[in-house]
């Protein structure tokens, strides 16, 4: 089911955790809410679930307003960060619990729970207690439980954060598989950009209680709307060059003068930096301060005064302490104004 927020504000005491946010989560999609800790992403999830209520604004499921409905009435499914599996119930009983609350007959309950156990591939452990399971297995049970009552919306609160790195990737794909198989509208909260980009149909980036950008992962990465999004996504972090300290950058770009005045910073992704022979074409020149090789990847650090740029995709491997000229294609350069917002810049074709 489609979820819609209209001007939702959430404050605890004087503190505004969410400031008038509005968004729509389309039906059947997997949408991530991404942001640093304290940005309000978990609060957003709690608001969808009905475990907490907004100070202002409206929430809709489909066409129906559910703002005042509590969690019991909203009937969403939810996977908690620490799974919150009932420790006194077996795996099967955990999965059956929501069905028991729906007063579904016992036989039917068991049948449905076993199907779900198969879906999440936990059918060999149905009689165990949660304590006897590994983290990944508990995660699977939590998903099965959340799906048991066929919720129209599935919520996941940092579901992978308690797993080790390898398991995290496995479960990530697992969640994607299950979501696609069931087609349930899923909201996935995470602070891990890689997780969000790899799993979602759409990503909503939150910071300080406001939506920064809401788009598909590729647009988000390629066309960030502001400096926060640009810097939050991508490893290594995007290189930024302040115009004030390096005025020569603008001189070497073919853009109109009036736009140049608004530009405060430019951003260059490490993998999009190129080398050039020609100093006149260079956006940045400096001394190679460090070359790090890890496996097949080479990371080059180039330093000029205080500023250090990181490039990961150079066609040559320079020697340390040599001078180097760096540039990038015009389409790969991000321009930000003094508020951190992106400026659309078209290259002026030289006559």
């Amino acid at each position, binding site marked *: 089911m489609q979820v819609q927020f209209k001007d939702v504000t959430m404050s605890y005491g004087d503190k505004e955790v969410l400031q008038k946010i509005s968004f729509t989560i389309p039906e059947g999609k997997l949408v991530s809410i991404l942001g640093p800790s304290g940005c309000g992403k978990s609060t957003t999830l709690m608001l969808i*679930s009905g475990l907490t209520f907004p100070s202002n604004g409206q929430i809709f499921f489909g066409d129906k307003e559910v703002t005042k409905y509590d969690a*019991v009435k909203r009937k969403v499914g939810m996977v*908690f960060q620490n799974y*919150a599996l009932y420790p*006194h119930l077996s795996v099967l009983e955990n999965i059956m619990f*929501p069905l028991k609350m729906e007063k579904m007959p016992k036989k039917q309950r068991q049948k449905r729970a076993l199907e779900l156990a198969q879906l999440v591939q936990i059918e060999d452990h149905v009689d165990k207690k949660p304590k006897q399971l590994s983290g990944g297995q508990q995660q699977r049970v939590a998903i099965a439980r959340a799906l048991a009552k066929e919720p129209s919306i599935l919520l996941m609160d940092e579901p992978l954060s308690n797993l080790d790195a390898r398991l995290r990737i496995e479960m990530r794909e697992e969640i994607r598989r299950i979501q696609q198989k069931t087609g349930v509208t899923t909201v996935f909260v995470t602070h891990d950009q890689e997780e969000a980009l790899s799993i979602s149909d759409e990503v909503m980036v939150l910071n300080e209680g406001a939506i920064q950008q809401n788009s598909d992962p590729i647009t988000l990465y390629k066309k960030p709307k502001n400096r926060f999004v640009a810097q939050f996504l991508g490893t290594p972090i995007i290189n930024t060059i302040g115009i004030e300290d390096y005025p020569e950058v603008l001189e070497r770009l073919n853009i109109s003068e009036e736009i140049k005045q608004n530009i405060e910073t430019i951003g260059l992704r490490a993998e999009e930096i190129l080398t050039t022979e020609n100093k006149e074409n260079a956006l940045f020149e400096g001394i190679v301060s460090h070359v790090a090789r890890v496996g097949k990847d080479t990371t080059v650090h180039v330093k000029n005064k205080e500023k250090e740029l990181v490039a990961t995709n150079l066609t040559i491997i320079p020697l340390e302490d040599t001078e180097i000229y760096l540039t990038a294609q015009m389409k790969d350069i991000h321009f930000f104004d003094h508020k951190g917002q992106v400026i659309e810049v078209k290259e002026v074709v030289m006559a």
Partner: protein
Amino acid sequence: MIEKPTLKSSLKSLLYIAPMMLIITTFNLYPIIRSFLMSFYTDFNIYTQEVNEYGISNFIEVLQDPEFILAIRNTFIFVLGVVPASIIISLGIAVLLNKIKVLSGFFRSIYFLPFVTSTVAISIVWSWIYHSRFGLMNYALGLIGIEPIEFLTDPKYSMLALVIMAIWKGLGFNIILFLVGLNNIDENYYSAAKIDGARGWERFTNITIPLLGPTMFLVSVMGVINSFKVFDEVFALFQSRPGPAGSALTVVYYIFQKFYQESQYGIAAAAGIVLFLIILVFTLIQMAFNKKFVHY
């Protein structure tokens, strides 16, 4: 970090534990063994403390003594009257206390107050409340149209009087333990249960009660043990008598009578051992129950 004990460190430690061990050995360890032995004294001179004969006749006598059987019966009635009711009431109060924020500590203080008071003093207060003519209880009952009850002189009501007072006195202790137990339940389980569609009462029966299992076990074991040992209340409530016509004679009161008033040490010790065994059996049953139903 763990060092191995050496002769030197052991001797030094001995100095630290010696004062405590001296007292505990004399007044705790030795008497346990001695009371066990005493229960087998059949011919004992109290003045010279010489034992002339051992045997099991004390046990036979105790178990055939109708007074003792009565004491056991009364004690069981007391335990059954106090423990379940106290658990239900104190759990209810603890849950309510957990629901509110303002004044929660204030209420807790009031409920716990009886715990710090002298059982003797408060029993005397209750005997005044139970007074057949001028007591508050009969006045209150009169208001709802019930004839005055001779709580302290009618054998039919003496146990009831004792049970009501004991529940009142013990509530605070159980409430504190339940509050600790409730606080140890992760809030996430309640959130999950709400998401899973469990309403207030369903959350209570499906989450609170099972997760409170260990506390429930603890409270019931301690309640049973303490209730089996009831004495001060009886002594003070019924003015140094085991209730009208022995109707509130409890096992510890029986031991007290045999030992202090009749100087039948062997009999008293045997009754004490029987009491100990009863408590032990009850505790073991509760432990088995706990193991079967409280496992996670």
